[in-house]
């Protein structure tokens, strides 16, 4: 699915945007499913835009969205980037409100953080066109790697608030790459890298799926267990997925069951 060059792009910069991975026609039913799940979660009341709405788990609740995960364009791409045996961490669907300040998903609770040698990818689909000034993802390329990531530890460990000018500029002017996208594009980015978003409209729609490289060491396994114990949804396979006749889905959630993790109930 990805060329050698695209893999080099991801390894070097920490992300890759695959343009128009899904066609306009494919995006219509996907968008409808996305909107339906969020509307159902609000009991079909209008979104009031006061704060972000986030539904977890997300793709697991709908057949079409689950098929998207099994699709070669997503699954094989993830396998190319993380290797076989990657684990499913979870998914969420969001209506965003306001800016997302600089941070990295690397940080977990109590100062714990993703080991530098354990890959973790978030796959994002935006259902509205987004650019640098309307809420697209911004990343600092290369910060998924220890050498650069550690230099910006104060950002991902403590965050960078709107009034923080420790680098001499407003935080929305921090040097970065803006990953502009339109519906059908898919963004794959390393969750360890510093990222943010500014200027997005209220109700900006985004679906995210997170996966983790197959743990190879005791440190990795212990990290997974700690994250599981701190969270309510992460690494908890959906019942529908556990019972699904799908080697790809089983490959992602089977090891979680082997670790004794709970199955999440349908939402």
């Amino acid at each position, binding site marked *: 699915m990805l060329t050698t060059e695209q893999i080099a792009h991801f390894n*070097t*910069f920490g992300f890759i945007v695959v343009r128009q991975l899904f066609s306009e026609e494919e995006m219509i039913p996907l968008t409808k499913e996305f909107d339906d799940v969020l509307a159902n979660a609000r009991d079909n009341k209008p979104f009031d835009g006061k704060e972000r709405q986030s539904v977890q788990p997300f793709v697991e609740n709908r057949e079409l969205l689950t098929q998207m995960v099994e699709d070669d364009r997503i699954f094989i791409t993830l396998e190319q980037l993380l290797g076989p045996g990657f684990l499913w961490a979870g998914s969420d669907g969001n209506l965003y409100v306001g800016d997302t300040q600089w941070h990295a998903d690397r940080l977990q609770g109590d100062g714990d953080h993703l080991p530098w040698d354990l890959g973790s990818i978030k796959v994002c689909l935006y259902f509205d066109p987004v650019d640098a000034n309307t809420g697209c993802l911004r990343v600092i*390329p290369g910060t998924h790697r220890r050498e650069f990531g550690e230099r910006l530890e104060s950002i991902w460990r403590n965050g960078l608030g709107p009034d923080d000018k420790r680098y001499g500029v407003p935080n929305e002017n921090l040097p970065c790459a803006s990953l502009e996208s339109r519906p059908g594009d898919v963004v794959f980015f390393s969750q360890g890298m510093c990222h943010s978003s500014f200027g997005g409209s209220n109700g900006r729609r985004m679906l995210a799926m997170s996966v983790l490289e197959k743990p190879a060491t005791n440190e990795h396994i212990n990290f997974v267990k700690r994250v599981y114990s701190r969270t309510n949804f992460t690494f908890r396979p959906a019942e529908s997925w556990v019972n699904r006749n799908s080697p790809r889905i089983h490959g992602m959630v089977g090891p979680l069951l082997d670790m004794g993790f709970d199955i999440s109930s349908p939402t």
Partner: protein
Amino acid sequence: MDALTREADSILREDRNGKPFLGEKRQAVLGFIEKRPLLTNLITDDRIYQPIEDLLGSGFMWVGSDGNLYVGDTAWHSDSRADPMEYDYTRIKVAMYLEPVSKETGCLRVIPGSHLPPLHEELEPMRNLRRMQSDYSGKTESVREISKSDGDHAPNPEPFGVAPSEMPGFSLESLPGDVVLFNQRLWHSSFGGRTGRRMFTLNFGQKPTTAEHIEVVKMVYEASLAAAQKMQHTWTDQLYTDRFLTSIEPRIKNMMAVPLELGLR
């Protein structure tokens, strides 16, 4: 800026012996700010001198300057060699654009953090494209055409799977009067600029304290002199003006101490 711009334009015109700029290839004049007192004053001005001293430490040296009329895009490159020795020696370029430049009209683009390993080294596949561009018209399209015609021997024009203009860079948009300072190891480029886009640079190096630093200083000098001889319309065998070499202005004298000591003219 009006006065600085007039002086800059006059130097470039003088280098062409008053002939119009044809826009076929970049014009670059080295030893640029040394040619006019008003421009020379820039490097002793606190607004330039103090930030450089803050970044490079005291005893920093003058490397040189150039004034340019650009043509086409500037491919991604680093001003340093692909040599670990350069990681230990920092040079800073101060760029002043004489007209507004934006992301689409030729402003500087940088890859943040690429002045350091491993990101710096991993971008090496881009360097070949710059070499190809410097021998040709300077247009990105020509690089792609050359790659096609050279077949298997050509470097990959898109080693990261995207066009060079789509590489994840940060655009340093600027207006006349803005000053851009950047570590010369940083990978940088520019796209979309108009023919004859005007910019001049002031280049500084930290005080060299090791044999390796001295080697870098000498290498940069040789490369700058070669570039002057290639890109200027007027022949020169000297990078620094006599006025600069014999200046008694304290800040210039301090900055020229290393070149004089090394016999670099």
